[in-house]
């Protein structure tokens, strides 16, 4: 049985009720996963410090309550048919910051553009915008943290002003022409991101709302990107089908478009399963290779499928009319 109690930056402190068959190494493995012996020893030492009643680490008893520091657990609540999303609260800001700190700029940019290619969707432009908004949301949140530090007297007024100006300048430089979209206002950034002086209002409310806006923009871009591009690809095919008289060509366009998208889906599935299984971090060079191969496979399969259809048509002019059978004619007019 565990009961959450205290919190630190990246750890939760819990009270752990020792069960039959438990040992310290087993408990550590449960929360930290398999560790190198040296690291495990370090954690055992910390447990002994926090639980001075334990005299021998090899002897713990069922029913004994231990104070444990475990890695903070971030579990978004999944909803049926809607993928879980990052919401703006303290935990999300922490996770975002941590995630972004551990990922290089190139890697993030490439990763943003990897999804479209592996999942046959989205675009580099949308990926870059997504990255821009997502990476700046924590910067806005820093403003709120800066104010909290001032209120808790961790910093002086001068330090607060200096940090605030620095963050705002950084934000202005990074967002550049996207400032108006990101902030949702024409006014200068220092006027938009301000502390509320209204009575009974949370002082950092406006800043938090703007951080949330950036995250929402990012989420919508990355979510919508794939749909937009898959839709755009089918839209172009639909337009070409509508403006072609030849039955053969209509079918060839359809087969190539579907082949391209489904080739990307199949390739994306293979890559996803491999990454999920191996748990090896994908560096930006690997991401670039995966994306490049994905684009090639997607294109190659589309063209290959079209060629096969053309060959079939040349053998028998009255071959399968997929456009007619799927009533694509009725939709693409």
């Amino acid at each position, binding site marked *: 049985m565990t009961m959450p109690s205290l919190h630190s930056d990246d750890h939760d402190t819990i009270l752990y009720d020792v069960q039959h068959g438990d040992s310290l190494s087993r408990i550590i493995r449960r929360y*930290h*996963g*398999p560790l190198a012996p040296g690291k495990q020893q370090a954690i055992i030492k910390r447990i002994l410090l926090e639980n001075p009643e334990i005299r021998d680490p090899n002897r713990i008893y069922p029913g004994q309550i231990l104070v444990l520091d475990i*890695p*903070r*657990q*971030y*579990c*978004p609540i*999944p*909803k*049926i*048919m809607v*993928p*879980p*999303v990052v919401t703006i609260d303290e935990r999300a800001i922490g*996770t975002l910051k*941590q*995630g*972004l700190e*551990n*990922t290089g700029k190139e890697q993030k940019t490439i*990763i943003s553009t990897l*999804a*479209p290619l592996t*999942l046959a969707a*989205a675009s580099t432009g949308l990926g870059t915008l997504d990255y821009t908004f997502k990476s700046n949301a924590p910067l806005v949140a820093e403003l709120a943290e800066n104010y909290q530090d001032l209120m808790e007297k961790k910093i002086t007024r001068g330090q607060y002003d200096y940090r605030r100006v620095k963050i705002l300048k950084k934000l202005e430089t990074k967002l550049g022409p996207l400032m108006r979209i990101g902030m949702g206002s024409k006014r200068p950034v220092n006027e938009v991101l301000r502390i509320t002086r209204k009575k009974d209002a949370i002082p950092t409310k406006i800043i938090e709302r703007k951080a949330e806006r950036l995250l929402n923009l990012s*989420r919508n871009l*990355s*979510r919508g990107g*794939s749909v937009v591009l898959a839709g755009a690809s089918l839209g172009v095919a639909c337009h070409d089908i509508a403006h072609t008289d030849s039955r053969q060509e209509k079918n060839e366009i359809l*087969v190539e478009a*579907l*082949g391209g*998208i*489904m*080739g990307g*889906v*199949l*390739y994306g*599935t*293979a890559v*996803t*399963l491999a990454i*999920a*299984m*191996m*748990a090896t*971090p994908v560096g930006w060079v690997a991401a670039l290779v995966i994306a490049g191969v994905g684009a090639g*496979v997607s294109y*190659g*399969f589309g063209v*290959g*499928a079209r*060629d*096969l*259809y053309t*060959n*079939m048509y040349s*053998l028998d002019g009255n071959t399968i009319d997929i456009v007619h059978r799927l009533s694509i004619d009725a939709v693409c007019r």
Partner: protein
Amino acid sequence: MMDFLSDPNLGTYVMFYVAMGAIVLGFLLLILWVGLHPFLCRRFDKELFKAPWFRPNELFLYASWPFSPFRSAAYMLLLTFPAAIKKRRFKGVEIDTRGDRVLTFFSWIFLLVSSIGIFLMIVVLVEGAFAYVLSPNILDG
């Protein structure tokens, strides 16, 4: 039957249906993934979507679309190949999946469909590459 097998265009017919098969399986794969993802995440996220099984940047990236399918892919592998995935991603995990028969069944279907689809796609790509390289027109420009 013998007439069909001796048809000189048999290769073209077979390859065309192989390509169409891959496209249809791709569609089926998407439907299965969209259907399975929420159920798999609801079942396993609480226990598994956290450190140390996912790195901090994975927790950040896989929380939302377009990378969230990586989570369900890992859970599907846990249901179908528990021994293999416990050696890599889910090292030392202690979770009882014996009651998840429906999810396991559909995860197997998913893996079967994806394996066949990927195999058919590779066949088309290899055949296309050979046809291109061995084409006599290639020398004529």
